[in-house]
C-alpha cells in the first residue's frame, strides 16, 4: 500500500510539471495570432489538461469503470443542455456570443455608452 502511495506521490509532481509545460504552450500559442494555432493551443490543450487532471489527480483511472460512465453521462447531458439552449441564450451574430441585443435594448442611455459597452465586451472574453 505504501509503495503504491509513493508511486502516486512521484506521479503528482511529474503531472504537475507536465501541466505547467502545457500551460506555457497554451499561453504562448495564441500570441502568434494564427487562428488554427490559437484554437489548438487554447482549446486542444485545455482538453488534454482536463483529461490529465481527471485521470491522475481525481483518480478516475483507478476508479471502477462505472465512475467513468457516470462522468461521461454527465458531460453528455451538459452538452445536450447547452446544445438545446445555445441558440436562445447566446446569439451567433453577436459579439462572440455576448448577448448584445439585451444590452442596447434595455440599458438606460448613458453618456459614455460606447466606452462602457466596450469594457463589458472585453470582460466577457
Amino acid at each position, binding site marked *: 500500500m505504501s509503495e503504491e502511495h509513493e508511486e502516486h506521490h512521484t506521479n503528482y509532481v511529474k503531472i504537475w510539471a507536465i501541466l505547467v509545460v502545457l500551460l506555457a504552450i497554451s499561453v504562448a500559442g495564441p500570441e502568434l495570432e494564427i487562428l488554427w494555432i490559437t484554437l489548438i493551443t487554447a482549446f486542444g490543450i485545455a482538453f488534454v489538461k482536463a483529461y490529465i487532471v481527471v485521470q491522475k489527480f481525481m483518480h478516475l483511472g483507478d476508479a471502477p469503470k462505472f465512475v467513468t460512465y457516470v462522468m461521461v453521462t454527465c458531460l453528455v*447531458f451538459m452538452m*445536450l*443542455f447547452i446544445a*438545446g439552449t445555445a441558440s*436562445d*441564450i447566446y446569439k451567433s451574430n453577436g459579439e462572440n456570443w455576448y*448577448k448584445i441585443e439585451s444590452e442596447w435594448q434595455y440599458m438606460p442611455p448613458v453618456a459614455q455608452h460606447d466606452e462602457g459597452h466596450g469594457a463589458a465586451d472585453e470582460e466577457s472574453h
Partner: protein
Amino acid sequence: MAELIPTQPDPGHEDDHHHGEQSFVSKYLLSTDHKVIAMQYMFTGMAMALIGGFMAYAFRMQLAFPGMDVPFFGIVTPANYVALVTNHGAIMIFWVAMPVLIAAFGNYLIPLMVGCDDMVFPKINRLSYQVFLVSAIVLLSSFFVEGGGFGGAWTTYPPLSAKAEYNLTPLGSSLFIGAVGIEFIAFLLGGINFITTAMNSRAPGMKLYDIPMVIWMIVIASILFMVSVGPLLAGAIMLIFDQQLHTAFYDPNRGGDPVLWQHLFWFFGHPEVYVVLLPAVGITAEIITVFSRKKLFAYRTVLNTAIGTGVLSFCVWAHHQFISGIDPRMANVFTLTTLLISIPIAEMMFVYIATLYGGAIRLTTPMLWALAFIFEFLIGGVTGIFLGASGADIYMHDTYFVLAHFHYTFFPIAIIGTYAGVTYWFPKMFGKMMSDRLGKLHFWGTIIPFNFIFIPLFFLGAGGQHRRIYDFQNFPALAGEGMQDLRILATVSLVVMLGFQVVFFYNFIISLMRGEKAGKNPWKANTLEWTAESPPPHGNWKVLPTVYRGPYEYSVPGREKDYWPQDEPN
C-alpha cells in the same frame, strides 16, 4: 455483492430487532425499516393529496360560481386563487405523485421484490423521509407568512416569481422554491438507495432480466431524476438569489435572461413527467400479468422502450416553450423529438394490450384500476400530440386544452396508478383483504366523474379559455352561457369525485379492522414479495429466497398450477 446482505444484524440494526421493547417513536417515527418508511411516505403523500384536492375544490368552485362563499373555505380572493392553483400543481406533482409512486412503492417493493432484508443504506433512507417531511412543512408554512402563499404558477417563471413587487409574496415565493429544493434532496437520497439496492442486493439467482418490471421502472425513474435535477437545483438557487439578494440572473432589465429559467426548469420538468410515469407503468405491468394469468408479452421490449423513453425525455423539454421566444429553428427540432417519444410509449401500450389478449382476465379492483390507467393515459398521450406540434401549440398554449391534457396524464399516473398499487399490495402491506365491492364502487365513483371533469375542459380550451384566470365573467367571449355550463359541469363532477374518495378511506379503515385475513399469496402471483408473510416482519424473510426464473411465468403449459413463483425450485 453478497457481502451487502447482512446475515448477522449489524450494530445499527440491532435495536430494531426487539420489536416489543420499542417505543412508538422509535418503531414508527425513527424506524430504519424500509416498510415503515414506505408507509410514512405513503401516508404523508395521502395527507398532501387531501390538501391538494381541497385546493382544487376551492378554486373550481370559484370558477363555476364566481364570487361565491365557498363552503369550508370562504370567499376566494384573486390572491387566494393564484396561490391555490400554484400550490395545487406543486403539491400534486412533488408531494403526492413523487412520494407515493417512487418513494413509497420504491421503498416497500424494492427489498421485497428483489429478495433482500432491507435497503442498502437504511439510515440514508430514514434521512430521506425526514428531509421530505421538512420540505412539506416548509411548503405549507408559506401560506402563513406575510403576503401569503406563492401564486406565480408551479413553473415559477421569472420575472413574476423573481420580484416581490410583481408577485406580492416576498417570503412565500422563496419558501415555495426552497421547499421544492429541499424535497429534491430527499429524493436524491432515496434514489441512491433504490438504484443501489436493486442493483447490488438481489437474491441469489436473480439475473437482470428476472427483475420485476416495476423495480426496473423505479430504478430508471430514479436515474432520470438524478440526472435531470441538477440544472433545476442550480437554477432554483439563482432564483432565490434574485428574490432575496436582488441579483439579476433572470432580470432582463439588467442583462439577465428569463428564458434561461424556462430552459433550466423544463430540462428537469419534462423528464419529471417520465419519472412519475414509469413507476405507474411498472405497477400496471405487475397487475395485468397477474390478473390475466399471462406472461408479459415482451419483457425486454418494455424494458428497452422504458430506457429509450428515458433518454428521449431529455431531448424534448423546449416543447413547453414554443411561444416563449425560443429560437424557431429549435422549435422544429423539439417538435420532432416530442413526436418521436410517443413511439416508445405507444409500444408499451401495445405490449400491455397484447398481454391482455387471450388472457383469463379477472376484473378485480386492482385490475380495473390498471385497465383504467391504460385507457385514460392513452387519451392523455394522444392529446399530447396536438401540443407537441409547434404549429398547433401556438394556438393551444396555456389554454385549458393543455390543462386537460396533462391532467389526463397525471391523474392516471398519480391517482389511478396509486390506487392500483394500493389495492393490489394492500393484502401484503397489512395482511388483510380490501373489500372488493367497496373498491369497485370507489373505482366507478372516481373514473366516471374524472372524465366529466376534464373532457369539458378540452372543449373550453379549444374554445380559447386561458389558464390561471380568476374570473371569466370579465371576458365577454368566455362568459357565455354554454361555456359557464361546462365549467359548472366540471366543478360538480369534481365535488362528486372528491366525495367518492370517502369510500376509499372507509374501505381502507374497515378492511384494516375487519378485513378477511389475506394469506401469503392471495392473488397467486409469482414475484418474491408474495412469498413473505403478510405483513412481512422486520427483515422480511427468516431465510432469504433464491430465484430460479423470471417474474411472469403464468399459465406455463404442462404445469398443474397456472403460476410459478420465482423462488420455487422446479
